[in-house]
């Protein structure tokens, strides 16, 4: 029965119901919105600095804000039109942040951008050029962390990457954006991989895909045979297979040490969406102004995958999938395990929005918290080898120092512990609190030292 | 009025066992029956009162540095007196209480009162203090002994009121701990309500 040699990470993990409702629905292009809201921070790091002003007319693909500082990314206009306002707007962060509000006129693009479907396989750009183009295009990790990609490609001196891992795992239930992308943009993806390999100077790339996407595994395997150095690795369906550290462990057997970066063990991981964006940026000069978004939910009429312009209001995307169901209790940006619940629907889709999940009221609520029965299930599912029950308890008793010694900072916030806990304890909530407080402690220490 | 307080505080409000949790060993070790508890309590009370009296008598003549050793010697003398007297005239009780008679010396309660009260107060106050504390201690021991005897042997002062045995555990070590735990909890509640 098993067709592939499966790999996986050794410890922990859970298997939530997969619910990939939209796996069979091809990517559709969402009608252009009348007004977009483009925040200046859509990435991990410092906000970009606006370079246009209120009232300016912009075309799609035009730079709106310039990255500022080391960890930051450029922001581009996703439609052409007039900058109505530059003001604070609610976004997925739950707070108001500076954003461009653009009223769309038509769909004019920056002429330097190649929008045709032609496949440019030949890579002419040099290593430096690739990284520069990716940086200019404002590409950030589309796997969820939205970490600026060019930084990850710039392997620090003294370290050496020897393997590129392409993350096509999509272990989150419900989400299918990466899956569809792998099926429909497979050729472009392969070029993207070669671009990233060149940028990193590695000659080996492995595409990791969970076994529940056999069509993608087959398709990419057949394509990979044609390019040297690229292989496809089927992975066991187990959450969080797509977590960077887990993926590296599964594929290479290497363990990223606590507090270290993947490059320390010679690996760099990129999401398939990021890879595609890299292809478009390098071969077609196209900045990151649109992305694939899965709109899904059991009560939703038509769970679908859309190609969405950055800045489109979430409400419009939901509308296109049949509208918000009457009994909606919760709307989540991203998947059910790691996504962020939002309080309002007029917030924009941003670079990191991989999906919009609608949960009916009956599934939207947490059950009452019960006492911990010390069943150790949270300990056994934690892929990082932590003790969530203890970290929560330490959090409740404000013992940050102890939590730090118990390595709260290693938590990747996968949520497996909260998912499994039979007593419905908000483990991850408190672990996040631990992490925040420990972070504050560390900052204080650093300040004291300097 | 004030003297009454010196006496009465030891009974409940500052009870050595229930409130201060001092002198635990004899409390647990000798309370297999109401009679034993009473005996131990009275023996301790005697030492406590006498040493309080003597300490408050000599308090002004003892230099600070040798305060503790002197007190210990005084207390130990009275303990030995009790020991010898009991051995001579109450041999059965002495056998039951065993090791715990000499250990009155190290009962934190006795030294504690000498230190904290008798060395700072007049003879009369110290006597009352010792008497109150001692009776409070005795009361607690007596209560614990009664509980353990009633539950453990089904009797009180040796008077059986059920056929057969009680819950044996209560005359054994674990029962002592458990009975005391719940007695303290109940007294805590009682004290808090009164306070």
């Amino acid at each position, binding site marked *: 029965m098993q067709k592939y040699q499966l790999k996986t990470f050794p410890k922990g993990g859970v298997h939530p119901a997969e619910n990939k409702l939209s796996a069979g629905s091809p990517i559709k292009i969402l009608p252009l919105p009348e007004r977009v809201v483009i925040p200046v921070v859509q990435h991990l790091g410092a906000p970009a600095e606006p370079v246009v002003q209120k009232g300016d007319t912009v075309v799609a693909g035009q730079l709106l804000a310039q990255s500022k500082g080391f960890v930051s990314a450029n922001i581009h206009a996703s439609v052409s039109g007039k900058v109505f306002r530059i003001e604070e707007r609610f976004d997925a962060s739950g707070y108001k942040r500076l954003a461009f509000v653009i009223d769309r006129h038509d769909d004019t693009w920056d002429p330097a951008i190649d929008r045709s479907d032609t496949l440019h396989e030949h890579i002419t750009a040099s290593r430096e050029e690739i990284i520069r183009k990716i940086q200019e295009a404002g590409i950030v990790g589309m796997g969820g962390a939205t970490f600026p990609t060019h930084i990850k490609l710039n392997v620090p001196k003294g370290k050496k990457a020897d393997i590129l891992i392409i993350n096509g795992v999509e272990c989150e239930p419900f989400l299918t954006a990466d899956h569809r992308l792998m099926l429909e943009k497979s050729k472009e993806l392969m070029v993207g991989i070669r671009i990233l390999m060149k940028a990193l100077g590695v000659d080996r790339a492995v595409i990791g895909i969970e076994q529940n996407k056999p069509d993608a595994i087959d398709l990419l395997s057949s394509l990979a045979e044609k390019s040297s150095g690229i292989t496809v690795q089927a992975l066991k369906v187990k959450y969080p297979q797509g977590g960077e550290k887990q993926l590296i462990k599964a594929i290479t057997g290497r363990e990223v040490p606590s507090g270290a970066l993947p490059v320390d063990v010679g690996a760099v991981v990129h999401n398939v969406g990021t890879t595609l964006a890299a292809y478009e940026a390098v071969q077609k000069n196209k900045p990151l102004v649109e992305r694939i978004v899965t709109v899904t939910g059991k009560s939703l009429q038509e769970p679908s995958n859309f190609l969405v312009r950055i800045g489109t209001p979430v409400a419009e995307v939901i509308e296109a999938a049949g509208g918000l169901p009457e009994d909606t209790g919760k709307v989540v940006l991203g998947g059910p395990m790691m996504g962020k619940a939002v309080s309002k629907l007029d917030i924009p889709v941003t670079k990191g929005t991989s999906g919009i999940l609608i949960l009916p009221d009956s599934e939207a609520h947490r059950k009452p918290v019960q*006492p911990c029965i010390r069943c150790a299930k949270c300990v056994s599912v934690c892929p990082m080898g932590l003790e969530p029950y203890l970290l929560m*308890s330490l959090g409740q*008793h404000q013992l940050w120092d102890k939590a730090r010694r118990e390595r709260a900072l290693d938590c990747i916030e996968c949520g497996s512990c909260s998912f499994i806990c039979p007593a419905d304890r908000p483990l991850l909530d408190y672990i996040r609190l631990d992490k925040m407080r420990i972070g504050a402690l560390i900052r204080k220490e650093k300040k004291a030292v300097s | 009025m004030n003297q009454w307080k010196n006496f009465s505080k030891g009974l409940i409000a500052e009870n050595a066992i229930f409130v201060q*949790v*001092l*002198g*635990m*060993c004899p*409390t*647990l*070790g000798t309370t297999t029956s109401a009679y034993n508890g009473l005996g131990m309590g009275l023996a301790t009370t005697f030492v406590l009162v006498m040493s309080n009296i003597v300490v408050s008598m000599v308090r002004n003549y003892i230099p600070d540095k040798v305060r*503790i*050793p002197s007190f*210990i*010697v005084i207390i*130990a*003398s009275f*303990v*030995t007196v009790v*020991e*010898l007297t009991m051995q001579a005239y109450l041999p059965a009780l002495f056998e039951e209480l065993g*090791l715990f008679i*000499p*250990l009155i*010396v*190290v*009962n*934190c309660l006795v*030294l504690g009162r000498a230190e904290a009260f008798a060395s700072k107060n007049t003879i009369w106050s110290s006597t009352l203090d010792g008497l109150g504390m001692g009776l409070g201690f005795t009361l607690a021991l007596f209560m614990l002994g009664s509980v353990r005897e009633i539950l453990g042997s089904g009797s009180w002062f040796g008077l059986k009121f059920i056929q057969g045995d009680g819950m044996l*555990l209560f005359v*054994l*070590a*674990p*029962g*002592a*701990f*458990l009975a*005391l*735990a*719940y007695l*303290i*909890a109940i007294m*805590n*509640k009682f004290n808090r309500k009164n306070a």
Partner: protein
Amino acid sequence: MEYFVILISAIFVNNIVLAKFLGICPFMGVSSRLETSVGMTGAVAFVMVLATIVTYLLQYYVLNPLGLGFMQTITFILVIAALVQMVEIVLKKVSPELYQALGIFLPLITTNCAVLGVAILTIQGKYNLPEAVVFSFSTALGFGLALVLLSSIREALDMVEVPKGMKGIPIAFVVAGILAMAFMGFAGLV
């Protein structure tokens, strides 16, 4: 083999705290934190062995020849008190770190009936000197075992919501009671 029997007996079967009811005050007092329990165990072991040796010599070479058996209590306690104070002073000077760790417990030990109790029990048990040393040391180990177990449990209980009336001393006694119950399982081993 004889030593082994003494060891097992003193640690498990006739545990000084759980079966003999000695040293309960420090057992309750310092058991709220594991770290202090370990320190206390060290201090008690040290003083207990030392005191047993000294009182042993005192009993067999002074009191008995002079027919002063009845002076046991008073002489023993005097010796122990002096010994503890001496240890305290010396330790403070010689090893401040050790003093930091053990120092605060030393005054407590004077009024710890376990030390005097063991000294008297050694005489009552008719041990010879090496046996007395083993006996006192294993008694201290037994004390330490009970103390460490209780304190680790109490630390764990700090993390849960113990009913108000039971918090602190009462619940510690309940734990001690159940521990004593469990330790009865060792009955008959020696």
